[in-house]
């Protein structure tokens, strides 16, 4: 136990790396996912098909495979990306597919009557989208997006499999160095619980603030 406290800094550095990974990967996934989501609801057939293909492929492959392909595959394709960046890219590409579906179902969740009413009072297409559909869609997306953020944090643990010393990786390393499984893993579990419970609480608060009662 005392060994753990003496070297707690290493685990805290790992926790910090986990947070950094998530903090960069989530916005990236948000950008990718929103672009894909827009493609999937657009009237342009080929774009819909391409975005759909991407989403199906990513959602049906294991995340570790995506991670391994990005981390070990990119150098073969002539792109040398640092390890940290590769893991961020892998997380962004993977969770972008999930965010795309969230965006799509957020838009699909807006009742048809709202859109018809907006068109009936003479709003143009962009007016319907900007003033009626998107504000409602964004509000209904808070909870699923919070879940995806939690999953990005948990997914960043796969960085340990490719050699990033984030929380899981540092716990593993610590265990190999000092052979203190129980305290080490409990410390890591507490770290993840802190992250997921905080995000869960925050999304709960935001969700209650912006919820639309129908």
């Amino acid at each position, binding site marked *: 136990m005392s060994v753990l406290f003496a070297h707690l800094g290493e685990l805290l550095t790992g926790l910090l790396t986990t947070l950094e990974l998530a903090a960069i990967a989530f916005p990236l996934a948000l950008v990718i996912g929103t672009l894909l989501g827009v493609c999937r*609801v657009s*009237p*342009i*057939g080929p774009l*819909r098909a*391409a975005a*759909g293909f991407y989403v*199906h*492929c990513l*959602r*049906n*492959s*294991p*995340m*570790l*495979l995506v991670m*391994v*392909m990005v981390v*070990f*595959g990119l150098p*073969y*394709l*002539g792109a040398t990306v640092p390890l940290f960046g590769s893991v961020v890219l892998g997380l962004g590409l993977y969770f972008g597919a999930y965010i795309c*579906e*969230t965006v*799509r*179902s*957020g838009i*699909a*969740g807006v009742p*048809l009557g709202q*859109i018809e009413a907006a*068109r009936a009072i003479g709003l143009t*297409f962009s007016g*319907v*989208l900007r003033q009626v559909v998107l504000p409602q869609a964004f509000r*209904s*997306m808070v909870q*699923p997006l919070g*879940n995806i953020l939690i*999953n990005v944090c*948990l*997914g960043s*643990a*796969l960085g*340990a*499999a490719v050699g990033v010393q984030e929380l*899981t990786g540092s716990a*593993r390393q610590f*265990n*190999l160095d000092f052979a203190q*499984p129980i305290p*080490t*893993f409990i410390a890591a*579990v507490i770290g*993840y*619980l802190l992250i*997921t*419970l905080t995000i*869960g609480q925050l999304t709960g608060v935001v969700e209650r603030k912006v919820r639309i009662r129908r």
Partner: protein
Amino acid sequence: MKSRSPALFDELGPRGQKRLKIATVVAVLALIGIVGGALAQLAHVQQLTARLWEPLIEWSNIRYLLQGLLTTLEVGLTGAAISLVFGTLMGLGRLSTHKWVSIPCAGLIELFRAIPLILLVYFFLIGLPMFGWNLPPFWVLTIPIVLHAGAVFAEIVRAGVNSLDRGQFDAAAAIGLRRGQTMVLVVLPQVFRALRPALVTQVIRTLKESSLGYVVGYPELLRDGQVIGEFNANFVQTYAFTAVIYIVINFGLSRVAELLDRPKKVRRRPDRPAPDPDPEPAASQPAGTLV
């Protein structure tokens, strides 16, 4: 395509249709550009040479990967089967009126959903052996999957039970069933029928999670892909091939889940309104299901 929300657009007039055609052509050209650029880059770094792709049509390599696929299916299906039982028990435990059952169940469910699966795998891989517990590799991989997927499924079961009409419980109580009998005879059959798509999704989840065999060195599909890729020095090609196998299998399963999810007209009595099809499938997805 049903993904399109039709009311967003007016029927396009001649000018709008022309614009749409132009946009479509531009989009097609852009997509061709992206794919062509990617292929050009692949050719440039000489990843398209036949030498690198040929190993993938050699029977010995294919057989090796098929063995990996078999292991993946073994781990995935075993994990799914046990996690269904485990998840149902945990979910019902969490719904129990006895605090000394429901609180530990709730705690375990929240715990396993809140930590990454790979941490659990590492605990079984390097934590337990320090206490002299040496599990066979199959179980080092499968037990964490069961714990993780079971906890997620427990929440799905709980949501299923909670969404059941209250009248079902009242009616069961009225004919004198005890709580346990109500669950087994009345509630669970209905919940499981409603959850059939979720059962298939559970299989997809465990199949994907079994790729963590890569971490513990257990020869499932991803790990075998790595071995073959190393042996033939064609990482990119082998991983691409492996990805295709995963995607084909899981896509097929998710189609099955979608078919099961279709609202059934036959079973409803005509005087009853059909239940609302879930407008936000992604929103109802609990955390911890994606990896």
